[in-house]
């Protein structure tokens, strides 16, 4: 069970705005990338550590979260570095959905999540049954449970660890 407060995206959020172009050439590093994460989404996040300092645990978003077509992993490490432990949305853009799986950051699809949460609400997420509780409002949402592979990668602490272990043990990757 993960508990914490959420930030609700007011409109659908693009990868471009989560990490703006001046930071694409930064090293992929949670600490580094979290300094300017969300800088292009809202003016209030456009200064150093602004998003991180809010201390949110979750993001609640609508369609096509992290869309606009950037495959850079800075988006995911930036969110993770700022303390985000899961993102709930009605749909995700594929490139960042894939990166999130590879990093073990739950990108959780829930069809009506965007209609029942406000920024600052306290949520609790149970990865086992996929239930997202809004403790502040006293309502619950069902989400799509993670596929077994995704859960396995997440348990290993990301795809790098997952593959590294297999290589070390001489196990086939299949």
């Amino acid at each position, binding site marked *: 069970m993960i508990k914490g407060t959420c930030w609700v995206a007011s409109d659908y959020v693009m990868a471009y705005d989560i990490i703006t*172009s001046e930071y694409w050439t930064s090293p992929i590093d949670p600490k580094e990338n979290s300094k300017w994460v969300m800088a292009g989404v809202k003016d209030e996040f456009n200064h150093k550590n602004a998003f991180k300092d809010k201390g949110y645990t979750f993001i609640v978003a609508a369609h096509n979260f992290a869309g606009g077509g950037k*495959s850079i992993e800075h988006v995911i490490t930036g969110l993770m570095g700022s303390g985000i432990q899961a993102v709930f949305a009605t749909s995700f*853009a594929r490139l960042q959905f894939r990166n999130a799986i590879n990093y073990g950051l739950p990108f959780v699809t829930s069809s009506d999540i965007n209609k029942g949460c406000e920024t600052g609400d306290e949520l609790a997420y149970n990865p086992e049954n996929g239930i997202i509780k809004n403790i502040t409002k006293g309502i619950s949402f069902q989400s799509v449970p993670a596929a077994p*592979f995704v859960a396995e990668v997440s348990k290993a602490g990301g795809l*790098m660890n997952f593959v590294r272990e297999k290589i070390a043990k001489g196990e086939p990757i299949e």
Partner: protein
Amino acid sequence: MGMTITEKIMACNSGRDHVVPGELVWTDVHTVMTMDFLGKQCFDKFESLGKKEVFDKNKVICVSDHLVPPPNQKFANMLNEWREVVKKHNITNFYDLGRQGIAHQIMVEQGHVLPGNISIGTDSHANTYGAVGSMGNAIGVTDAAIAMATGKAWFRVPETVKFNITGKWQPWVMAKDLSLHIMGMMHWNGHLLYKSLEFTGPAIKSLSMAGRMTLCNMTVDLGAKNGIIAPDAVTERYLRNRTTDPWEMINSDEDAKYDQVYNVDISDLGPTVAMPGKLDDTVPVEKLIGTKFNKAFVGTCTNGRLEDFAMMAEIMKGKQVHRDVNMILVPASQTVYLEALRAGHIETLIEAGAAIDTPSCASCAGIHTGVAGDGDVVLSAGNRNMTGRMGSRKAAIYLTSPAVVAASSITGEVTDPRTFDK
């Protein structure tokens, strides 16, 4: 039950007879591409996996495209580190400054992607490879590092959506107009997320390889996993002198199952423009006639090919770029540059007052040359127009075809290439 071309590719590259959408598979990859600003991190991650040598030094393709030539010391230093790591791993196919091009152009033009195979790259427009019937897929640095070590990548088998394109192409109408038209029709926010898009029909058969690349290239911007065109005589001709590797004609089965089928008749399709900020906010060029702009840009993995330069040269021959417009043209590779030079297009375009930039991603990514400043209005034949894409967040970017950019650059306002000199 039959399979679509993408399902067949995923099945045969994962050692299966059959796959169905939703299934998760580890497949072999034919080639892995990475480029200058992410490549060093790919190799670092690869090394952290405990492997000394890449799975095949001929199949890891390294390209310098986003940072070359370096405009500042930061990029120069990054390039030096990149060169060092590529050299250390003894990579055969390194397209560095002098032999460079935009990675996706290089991958197709140099025969590194083939029908029936899966190729991946650390840049979102890797979907371009579908032009030759390859499953081209954009991935992150993690996937690239793992593929470098193992020759494999994981995929969820996507549902396929078929676009059956019929009708005859009108003069001055390009594949880009079809891309933008489909963008407007399908929207950006969901209908095609994760899907494989298959383009078929008579209007695709008659499309050049350059046009096929444009069409597949922009499928990533529709949210799709890949875009693909089954190989045919055009593909065979194109690949003949580019590869000695074997490949097979592969196509969807007649009884393949599609998630959706869309029929698009292009007989009435005219030049199309996407309004600043959103790719799916598209309008026919007629709606914008007279709109002023001050920067014109043609290049990128979407529209920097010989055909695009030929089209612009035809429109701009003997004319002059409007005095209020700066026009930057960037061939997609050194090969394209040389071909356009030999064909006389570069001469024509320079005489018209256009500036030619060294092959690279240039203005498109907004981090290199020719960036947009505050208040700029850009008419671009690139692939993205969201806020800040080409530099300033206070610039507006209209996206369209090279033909529209060429005709409009002469008049200084958005112009229909079908009628501009009549």
